[in-house]
């Protein structure tokens, strides 16, 4: 597991032209074309950063998930990502909940 601080500070890649690691997913078959070259990799989709599991033969999307911490996607994520909000940050919501 990579440290949260790596999301803040990452070195410049040593590779002249970086690539995306398309991780092969074993045991899945494309429901559209029957292909078995299924890969999971980070994409920018309509809602922003997602992890896509796609057939590499026909590009059919088998699943599209919100990235987990270990996916390291998007590149930056604050350490406070899963912290509880402070009272100040929820003040209006709580105030209006009480009033209603």
């Amino acid at each position, binding site marked *: 597991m990579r440290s949260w601080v790596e999301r803040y500070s990452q070195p410049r890649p040593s590779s002249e032209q970086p690539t995306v690691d398309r991780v092969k997913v074993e045991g899945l078959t494309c429901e559209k074309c029957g292909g078995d070259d299924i890969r999971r990799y980070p994409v920018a989709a309509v809602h922003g950063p997602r992890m896509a599991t796609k057939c590499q033969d026909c590009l059919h999307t088998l699943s599209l998930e919100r990235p987990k911490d270990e996916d390291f996607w998007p590149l930056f994520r604050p350490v406070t990502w899963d912290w509880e909000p402070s009272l100040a940050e929820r003040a*209006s919501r709580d105030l209006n909940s009480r009033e209603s």
Partner: protein
Amino acid sequence: MGTSRGETDGVESDGIAVNDAIEPRSDVVSENSNFLTAKEVEEEYGIDLITAETIRAGLIEVTRHMFRTLKESAFSNPVREMTDFGVCVHMVNEDNSTELISVTEGCTHFAFTHPHMMNFMVDEWGIDNFGPGDTIVCNDPWRGSIHMPDVNLFRPVFWEGKPILFLSDASHLVDIGGPVPGGFNTSATEVFAEGLRIPPMLITSNDKPVRSTINLILENTRTPQHNLGDLRALFGTMKVGEARLLRLLERYGADAVIAASRYLLDLSERRMRAAISRVPDGKYEAEEWVDDDGLTEDPIRVAATATVSGDHMEIDYTGTDRQPLGSIGSCWEETNRMLVGPKVVLDPEHPMNSGMMRCFHVVAPAGSVVMAAPPTSNCQHADLAAKVADLGLRLCGQMVPERAVAADGATTFAMPLGGIDDRPGRGGQPYGGIICQGVGWGGTANGDGISFCCSPIYGISSSTVELMERDTPLMIRGTDLQIDSAGAGKFRSGFANSALFECTDGEMIVTTLIDSGRKTRWGVAGGGEGATAYVYRVKKDPDGRIPRVNGIIPLSHLTPLSGCFNDDGLPDPEHGIWSNGTEFHTNKLTNYVLKEGETLLLVPAAGGGYGEPLERDPELVRQDVWNEKVSLRAAEEIYGVVLDANTLEVQMRETGEQREKLASDRGGDAPPVSWFAPWPRTADEMPLRASEAAAVGAGKEGSE
């Protein structure tokens, strides 16, 4: 009721749907299969078509009101003059993702950026933590902001206790702090040297301004008096949008507005899927080059492969260079900016919303220049942006050749500036501004590219000369369409528009956002390449005058700062060598001190032409010569059009012969790069105006 594309969208003209130039692929999709009848709309969304379309228009109207409000109330000159902003409405889906349902943008970017950024905000803040009257501010490029000078606001719209819609707006502040006025520090290698990075923070809570957030912004920027005005303008715009949305909700009910929003998103998706389906399956590849990062001299490759499969497209940036040391990288923005090209080429008529974005996935390698990793600098991303926009056009031009667009000048061609204003009555106040003069666009199958307009990716206006001179000690001594600079073609590009800027008081700190100085911009379908960009310091005559005709200034009055020059010291985009004998090895000057009385000449690149220049209507060439945009030499040597030097009338027989000769000489090779030659060394060698030449030739007295 059967629906054709034209009937569905009400865009028929003389019985022919606008998009019918592209034949549908019958093996993939029939012409009508992707569109719904009124009955089907009612069955699918539980709302009648007329109401759905009325609400769709109503949502767009909300953003039009917001647009007008922000433009008329902003202090920032990029917003009030150049319309460098966008205003949006977003819908909240059941899984708490959001989708943009309407937008009015001055700058095209925002229509593509804010859908992603809105999702970044809701994911991080948490939908359950938003309250009525809350507004979030953020300018972080790693959370989807275009760059840090853009301050983006996001505000929920509550209905019956739930945030069902969101509004967003943005303003490009003239300063965001950091070591360089305007925030474009081309010498930065880290984001910390660029300005104030604002994570998502409350800037209003329960409709009250959050003092600590406002103080943070105003106390870390050079122009607090402008920035407070802009923040208030953004609040006001949100209030206008919220009031309009609530009226829409009150009139039609939330269920109908949500149903109509689902309908309009799906409609946009259907249209784009139909358009993609008409593109032959396969891979399409293209590349672009950024001159340099402002720090090192290496050009930067930006490449992409678009894979079309049925009605889906995946665009992969593999092959793109890694992030450079300097600030040219982009942190998220290129993932959505890449979709501008497909939108422009494949479905340009339909209003933008997130529905079309459902048809695409973009793959951007971490650490590449299009997905630069924190904490790298990224403030010069704008010139990468221009290249990415052209990259998208180049990919899609292969897919639909009849809609291909030649390259534009592909540079921001802007000059952020700042300093202390000691002019009488100014009280030594800090000032900031951005002057943006536009570039030449590429030729198309239908016509010449326009000039004097900002790169198409930005879609914004040029700044206003009079207001700039009022608000800052900058004098715009002139702007010219530079003769012979446009990429030649059956339809030529727009022209490079050179601009002369002079500081009239004290010392002005300027940055030049200029690229496309190293490589000429490409044409399509046999079109020629246009001129490259240059930066000069100008030497004035003792009386302060600068000899200048149609953008041409003799070398005796110029000190080359950057550009391509041949060994004779002449500017030469085709055979010259980059930074040969120039003071700088980049067009991206930063923290350049423009002293009182000093003048800079900035020349942007022109675009490429569309189609063979020897097929250009001779009458159009004659008009360009008459208007002093094309010289007699270029008319003859590039377009093969021979004009009578006295009357400027086309000599049809000689033109035919010349065109045959040039076609034979070129043997299918590309036409020469457009450029004025020979460049005059002294004022005595300056070209005569076309009208003067004609007058002199006819034995009449020339007129000044």
